[in-house]
């Protein structure tokens, strides 16, 4: 499937910002089962400096500095991306205990190495209660993916999707106790549970197609940025995208923007501005199929 992705991010400040630095992770890149045909970023006001590069995890990064006093910052993304559906993950594969031991023994420090995704990270502490919740899905000897998929479904069943129930500063233990949240909370909870068991889990930020295909239900998170999880199931099986918000495998409807240990690594816009008073953020996203052929 080929999509046109449009995102407009608008920051409105209560007073003029005289100088600002931002880090943007808004341009999708080629990934397994994803090809980027074109992508462009439009920033107002015009940055005094703009450079492109990659972060540690290989995500495309744009660094900008703004030196013109401004009270509105607008970042527009336009991209055309082709996505393949995921194949069936295969029911077998390694046991979760084996996956854990493999991950502990990795001798690779590259961006996709499972070693990076085993530990507590900035926004994902390891919490004994979340670990115990996850452990139910991992009886001895169960294949890694089977356990992860069951955990994903339990999160969908046990938690209420509710915009506004949590904020960006809500921690996974807090949203776990509330049993509610949005995509980011569910991803963080699932990651925390898996890592608590010693299993590699990564955070993915990206998009869902806005209007579902005929006869398919509309997915949660389709009109905003979305987040889901990738789990590692051993060398042969590799990484798999699991979307606990919708209890589906990440497939033809998921466009990947950035991958990291948690939201802090993959956040689409980071910035440091000195401003008195409040700032307001609005994000508008559309993901429209261009055609199903050609993909």
């Amino acid at each position, binding site marked *: 499937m080929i999509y046109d992705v449009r995102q407009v991010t608008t920051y409105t400040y209560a007073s003029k910002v005289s100088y600002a630095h931002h880090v943007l992770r808004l341009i999708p890149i080629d990934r397994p089962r994803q090809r980027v045909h074109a992508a462009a970023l439009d920033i107002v006001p015009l940055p005094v400096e703009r450079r492109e590069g990659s972060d540690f995890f290989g995500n495309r990064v744009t660094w900008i500095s703004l030196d013109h006093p401004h009270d509105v910052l607008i970042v527009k993304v336009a991209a055309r991306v082709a996505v393949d559906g995921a194949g069936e993950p295969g029911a077998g594969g390694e046991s979760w205990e084996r996956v854990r031991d493999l991950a502990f*023994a990795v001798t690779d420090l590259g961006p996709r190495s499972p070693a990076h995704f*085993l*530990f507590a990270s900035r926004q994902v502490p390891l919490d004994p209660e979340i*670990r115990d919740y996850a452990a139910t899905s991992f009886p001895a000897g169960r294949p890694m993916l089977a356990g992860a998929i069951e955990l994903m479904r339990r999160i969908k069943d046990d938690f209420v999707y509710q915009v506004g129930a949590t904020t960006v500063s809500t921690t996974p233990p807090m949203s776990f106790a509330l049993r509610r949240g949005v995509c980011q909370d569910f991803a963080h909870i699932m990651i925390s549970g898996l890592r608590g068991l010693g299993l590699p889990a990564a955070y993915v930020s990206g998009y869902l197609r806005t209007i579902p295909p005929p006869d398919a239900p509309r997915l949660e998170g389709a009109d905003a940025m979305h987040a889901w999880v990738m789990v590692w199931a051993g060398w042969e099986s590799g990484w798999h995208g699991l979307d606990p918000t919708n209890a589906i495998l990440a497939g033809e409807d998921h466009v990947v923007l950035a991958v990291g240990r948690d939201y802090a690594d993959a956040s689409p816009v980071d910035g440091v501005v000195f401003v008195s008073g409040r700032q307001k953020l609005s994000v508008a996203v559309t993901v429209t199929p261009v055609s199903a052929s050609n993909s």
Partner: protein
Amino acid sequence: MAMVGDSAERPASDDPFGLVAGYSPLPGIFDEMMDADRRVRPHWRPLLATLGGLGPEEINRRFAAADRHLRDSGVFYRVYEDPAGGERPWPFSHMPLILDAAEFRSLQAGLIQRADLLEAVLADVYGPANLVRDGRLPAALVAGNPEFLRPLVGVTPRGGAHLWLYAVDVGRGADGGWWVLGDRTQAPSGAGYALENRLALSRALPDAYRELRVERLAAFFQAFQHELSSLSRRDASRVCLLTPGPMNETYFEHAYLARYLGFLLVEGEDLTVRQDGVFIRTVSGLRRSEVLVRRLDADFADPLELNARSRLGVAGLVQAVRDGNVVIANGLGAGFVEARALLSYLPALAPMLTGSDLAIPNIATWWLGQAAARDNVMTRFDQMVIGSAFFEALPGHHDAREVVGGTLDPAQRARIVEAISHRGVDFVAQEAVTLSTMPVALDGTFAPRPFILRLFLARAADGWTVMPGGFVRIADDIDARAVSLQRGGRTADVWVPSEHPVADTTLLPRAETIVVNRATGALPSRAANNLFWVARYVERAEATLRLVRVLLNRVMEADDATAPVVARISALLVAWSAVPNDLPNARPTLTVLAAMQRRDLEGALPHHVDAARSAASVIRDRFPPDAWRALVDLADIIAAPLPAGAPDIALFDRVNAALRIIASFSGLAQENMSQLIGWRFLDLGRRIERAIVTCRFVRRLATDVFPDGVLDALLELADSQITYRRRYVMLAAPTPVIDLVVLDPANPRSVAFQVDRIETHLAVLPRQSAEGRLSPPQQIATVMSSALRTTEAAQVDDQLIAETERSLLRLSEAIAAAYFTQHEPSDGKWEAPG
């Protein structure tokens, strides 16, 4: 502890004066001063002989002198657990640790090897990562380390190194050999404290210090200073010491080292990153810095690419490092090699990375992320110390970083064993080490106590240089394993007697002094702002005290004639929010008590004094220590409870004492601060505030009708009675009083005098506007001063005074806009690079 001495068994030459006659090493434990047969080791004998020769009374006098030095220089240590953020006095143990010169040389060589090893590990993990690829370091051990800062991977640091200052904690085991207990590479503390300890002790014991030919510390600091300064490519750029600020436990040391080394003490908000580098926000505009000595944890150093929650860092600093625009010492990410888990791999890495085995072993450590180590450790669990593999608290033990296996109850034990079986990657096991002891003076005698020795290495032009001394932390308990100043304990100096004459033996006090030329004009805006406000708050406190004193005088001679003065001054205090507005006028003592004591009123004295002290605390490096002490004394005297009974007299005494302290503060600032730009901001604050309060006194007391006594009260408030009486042999009359208090440029309390001084200062400050034009603050001051100069005393009315007061408030804002807030122009016209 009993220490039954039997000095008769010992040769007299050991300890000719019987100074340590009652001292006995603990059984089975190595003692630095005495061997197992209670013979004093040779390298301690000269100290005991010199010290013993002084006699007990003189020793006590000398030790007290050292304590006084430390107290007077303001050494302190902030205690995190103290809810009040308290500072504790420096816990100094007077007996130094003596290290034999030959032994120190071998330690030195081993530590240089270790510094090279750690640098090589950092260069690899932030570079090609061969150690992981070749299976010499597990990837999980690197990836799980919170100080593995991914934004720095692939960045070769400018200057070619990650480590510039390296501290290492060592302890001596029962067999007499040294062990490395831990490495400090993040932002090593203690070098400045070592220097302070040395200054205190060498001044207290100059004879012993000379006799033993103790190696000096100055050369070490000079080498470090020289090396860092040489990294700047532009002459005009300044080396900065980046501190997290006064709430940090070792802030005193940051300020002390910055002053000693001639580096500029800055906080994150003093710096800004632009396309071509890192700049200091100063009152003269942006000034480049190419070298930052970092005392801020790396994760907090850049909210943009590291911890976004940090309010202490500098946005864009990682980018500046990537671009090679700045050297950070130690480099961002250097804290990686502090992780305990690494200790288990360093012995095997040493031969490959340094060409030989570790000369000084580190404490035996097993990382439990590997099955073989895990199984091995589980068989000896009770003898092992279980710790966090990296830096966090031990999982499941929120307050502890380590536990001893054998001390756990069955439930704790089961929990930790299960946690290790799930996530062994989070744990290390270490062999317990029994530390050696050194003598500590306790209750008039000496007793052995375990200690940890911290040694310092600095990168210099020709390689690592080792500080010939160090920083000792001594445990309070006999069997303490972990020694931390946060948990109590004391510190001591470390003496390495030289085998050769040391340089500068005749100029002891100067031997530790580096002559530094401080560039002028690089006053950070934040420091200027704080100096300005310290002075304003102190002046406001003084004005409040003077009002209170006038009231008290009237209370003591209460009659009907004083009523108008009491009413007007009480009204002024209400207008200032120094007292609540519902107090009965008939009870001025209540008004006085409120103004002196109410902590909830923002115009009352405690608020001004606290505000002055807190503004001063962040710029302590710029204050004469005595001026700082005056502020502390002022806060103490205001906070002290009043004695019951005779409140008026007690209050009167207190007001006078507080005014005397303020006078001494002002005098110290005037006499002991270099009259550079910082002093000008301090004086500007004082002059502006004094002019404002004098205007308010005049408006309240002397611009309408003049009931009995109000003009006398005004003269009293303006401290001008004596001048007035000398000039006019008559009762206070409106015109001459107003002339003296408002217009007379020769009266140091008049408004005109303050404005005159303000103009002088503004003319010397860096210009912030186009060539030939007056700066915005100057424009305001000039208009004000012409108005005052062209007005006759008889014409002075409420309107003129009110206009002057408004101008002063606008002037304060204009100074803030021009020098403190640093809103750069949008056309990018900040100061050209260096």
